[in-house]
């Protein structure tokens, strides 16, 4: 039986290979989205309006939600137009949605029966499915800083490379937490479509909650949301790297995966 692979590794590899094309398409689309916004920047920067004064007039909650600090610099512009929206919200929600479909989807389709009829522990399945989404997270956060850097140069601007790299490095633990959240939901909700929507809805609700309570007396509660621990604007505009936030997110991801393992071990596969 020496020709058998390590189960969690085999599951992760198979899962990641199945996502290869989708991952490349998503990377391409997000790159195009980023470049589109960058193309707008020169005309915005030379326009005769005080954008910073304009965003200063936004209600605090809105500024908080979209991490708006300053918009007239290339860093501020990218933070508001791309990272706060696409990286924090769009990619985060999508990852939670994808992960939400993993375990529940396998059980509902009967794929899980085939996997677990092999000498595979349920823990291996959960960990394998988590790791199967890691290549997508890594690909996005390796490819996009390159695209962003080249794009910025192309519109005749310069950007602090350290900050650009940091905004992606710090995105990895945040994105893994989104995956962990989806995975945990996927072991709690048996219908895959529902699990996906619950995962996505939960993350979005947490984001809204954080934005609303941020400047109130309950601001400590905002820490419950993963989105509270990753702030692209602070990284890009102020050069503030929230390492404690990254550590918190890494721990949260681990806890969520552990929760999924515990829950899935006890579950009947409804089939």
């Amino acid at each position, binding site marked *: *039986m020496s020709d058998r692979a390590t189960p969690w590794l085999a599951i992760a590899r198979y899962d990641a290979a*199945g996502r290869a094309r989708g991952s490349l398409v998503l990377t391409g689309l997000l790159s195009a989205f980023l470049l589109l916004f960058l193309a707008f920047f020169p005309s915005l920067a030379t326009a005769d309006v005080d954008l910073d004064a304009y965003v200063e007039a936004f209600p605090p909650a809105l500024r908080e939600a979209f991490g708006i600090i300053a918009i007239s610099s290339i860093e501020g512009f990218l933070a508001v137009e791309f990272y706060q929206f696409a990286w924090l919200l769009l990619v985060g929600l999508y990852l939670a949605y994808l992960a939400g479909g993993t375990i529940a989807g396998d059980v509902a389709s009967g*794929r899980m029966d085939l996997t*677990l009829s*092999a000498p595979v522990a349920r823990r291996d399945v959960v960990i394998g499915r988590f790791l199967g989404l890691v290549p997508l997270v890594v690909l996005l956060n390796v490819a996009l800083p390159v695209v962003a850097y080249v794009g910025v140069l192309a519109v005749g601007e310069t950007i602090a490379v350290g900050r650009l790299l940091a905004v992606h490095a710090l995105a990895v633990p945040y994105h893994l937490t989104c995956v962990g959240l989806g995975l945990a939901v996927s072991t709690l909700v048996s219908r895959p479509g529902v699990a996906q929507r619950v995962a996505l809805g939960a993350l979005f609700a947490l984001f809204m909650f954080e934005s609303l309570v941020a400047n109130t007396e309950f601001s400590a509660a905002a820490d419950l949301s993963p989105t509270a621990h990753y702030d692209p604007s602070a990284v890009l505009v102020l050069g503030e790297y929230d390492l404690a936030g990254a550590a918190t997110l890494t721990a949260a991801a681990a806890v969520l995966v552990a929760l999924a393992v515990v829950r899935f071990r006890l579950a009947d596969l409804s*089939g």
Partner: protein
Amino acid sequence: MPAIECRGLSKYYGDVRGIEDVSFAVEDGEVFGFLGPNGAGKTTAIRTLLGFLSPTNGGATLLGHDATDPVESRRARERIGYLPGDPGLDRDRTAGAFLDHQAALRGESSRDRLVERFGLDESRRVGDLSRGNRQKVALVAAFIHDPDLLLLDEPTSGLDPLLQEEFASLVRERVDDGASVLLSSHVLGEVAALCDRVGVLREGHLVAVESVAELRSRGGKQVRVRVAEDVERGDFERRGIMNLRVGETVSFTWTGEYDALIDLLSGYTVRDLDVVDAPLEEAFMTFYDGDVPGPVGGERQRSEGTTPAETPADSTAASGGDTR
């Protein structure tokens, strides 16, 4: 050591009964059939044995390992091949990629041989394959590592007759090499052709375990006789006669001794007589007709006009639940 030993295994889904108090053993090298209509609990029993469902009560061993202990169960599963009734295959992956994955999880001592034998084109997407070819992929996955115990749930659904034959010989070859098999089906012919013994499931209960030979003898003889005299229905209503039809010819299923049949017919001028083995279905139906009857016990219900075709359908409806 039996390949499977099931002791009082019960599985309830909330209040809904899946299986209740199921006990049986599959001996080493034996092919054991689970027979029963949809909803009888065949799939629930197999999925509980594999640890997909945790039993409400009772326990089981697979190849000597406790099936209800995750670590022990995993050890048993190293040597188990499983074919689900409706295998969940990734439609957007190629057959080759799927089998690569199965091989990584199980081992692949027989992969190349099986792929060649079934003429599988591994480069095609599973979703593009016909139902029969998809079933072939699942079959290869089940046999890929030369398992010592095979759990096959409705294995030939979706297979054409030629492929069914190929499947049957594949099972026999594994058994010749020492493997044991638990096979579920609602098709009697399939079970009769492959199995040594049959367990009949009805509404979650294992109502009988018999050898196929016993089951056959239970079926009795199908008798068609034409006599010169006018006959009344009452003339033939007696012990040992089931499914009586009286018309131009008299036909019935005879479950008694030959001598008694000859005695019965000696009172008439026999113009034509035809005696053949009753189809196995007849024997099978007796299990779905109230309590498990002996050869004669089913007579009362039969003569009241219950047709065999209706009976299993009623049982299915009465079981009131998904097999899973």
